[in-house]
């Protein structure tokens, strides 16, 4: 699994950091998403998929095959 985030789209909602705190964080100054781990282990895949679908800005893309 490979994750990419579009910082430009991110509205700093922080849903991702609530759901998958090991994979996503937010910048202190403006809340924009920080990708902590672009290729996280199996155990995080469920939470990452959920983050991508829940992200209100559709800023997280998950490539399952990579």
């Amino acid at each position, binding site marked *: 699994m490979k994750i990419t985030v579009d910082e430009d789209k991110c509205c*700093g909602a*922080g849903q991702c950091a609530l759901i998958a705190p090991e994979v996503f964080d937010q*910048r*202190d100054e*403006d*809340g924009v998403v920080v990708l902590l781990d672009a290729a996280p282990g199996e155990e995080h895949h469920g939470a990452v998929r959920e983050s991508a679908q829940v992200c*209100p800005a559709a800023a997280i893309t998950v490539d399952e095959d990579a």
Partner: protein
Amino acid sequence: MSASPRVVVVGASAAGLATVEALRRKGHAGAVTVVGAEPYGPYDRPPLSKQVLAGAWPPERTRLRTPEVLDGLGAEWVLGDPATALDPLSRTVATASGRAVVGDAVVVATGARPRTLPGQERLKGVHVLRTLDDAAALRADLLDGARSGRGRLVVVGEGVLGAEAAATARGLGLDTTLVGPQRVPMEAQLGPLVGGLLADLHRTEGVRLRLGTAVAGIADSGSGRVRGVLLDTGEELPADTVLVAVGARPETDWLEGSGLEVSDGLVCDAHCRAAEGVYAVGDVARWHHEGLGRSLRLENRTNAVEQAGAVAGAVLGDERPYAPVPYLWTDQFGAKIQIHGLPSASAEAEVVEGAPGDGRFVVRFRRGNRTEGVLGWNMPKQARQWRREVSDAFAPPPPVPGSPVAG
């Protein structure tokens, strides 16, 4: 209900899409049909009053999923064909083109439509802002006005949408006036402290505020175009373009005659169920929030998705009540504002981090020792950290031993 119930989702926007995705994520492999009134696939509304109105994004960028991702969901999309009736007993949805779609479960995700002022539909230059088409029409009028020196915009409604659209329009250089009955923008929602700071921000950026005055109507130029906005005081504010942002009404007209209870939204239980096999999600849903002990209807983007998760769960037999901490954000000029919980105008508001003078702070809203909400102003991460206090206030009573844990 079978393990793979046939599901019909009515409404192809944020909540409808999220329902389909949540069903698939939870392992549902049965047939899903999505019926949508608009001709477009799911797109995102928050950018309409922000990046799209400002021209920073082309409209296509609001598309929520690529065609490949939509295809991958394996649902049937019936677009441009509004549902006209629902029979809850047979769970049959009738559409304008004459289709009858039957499911084991029907999910109502028809959102809301803007409220309007009497007579506004007949006048050129008067807009609402809900859809991609609305945003395109408003933007075209504003650009046209700015070019031809007819750039006076009056925004009617000082709630979140009105305040935000006024900020965006001002950013485009328009002569912008914000009118409404409250003393400061968003006062009913956020109280005088934050509302006052919003008023300062708008004034500093050059928006004219005509607040504390109700609007009596819209004045006609005589040639079918708007001439101005009439105030309760008898005064007329001249306008070339008017945006009416006076709230939204849940889209339940098509449910008339279904026998389902409608009262400012489709009324549901704690599991977002309106009747056996009928559910509601998103802006249209009024459900019982067990943590608050009362019914609630939310108009925000995060709720559309979170509630979809709960509804998909309920369709598949998960008995957890839906009891979220509401969350809303808005961008106005440079301020990115995030609101967790449900602050109210009369709550005790206190700055608990940062300082308004620095343009970065967190406000906590309390009533007694209960934290109703927190608001971050250019402090999203910190606001999220304060959210914990809010969560306690929204938590449902602990589940009965032996039943699944809420979470």
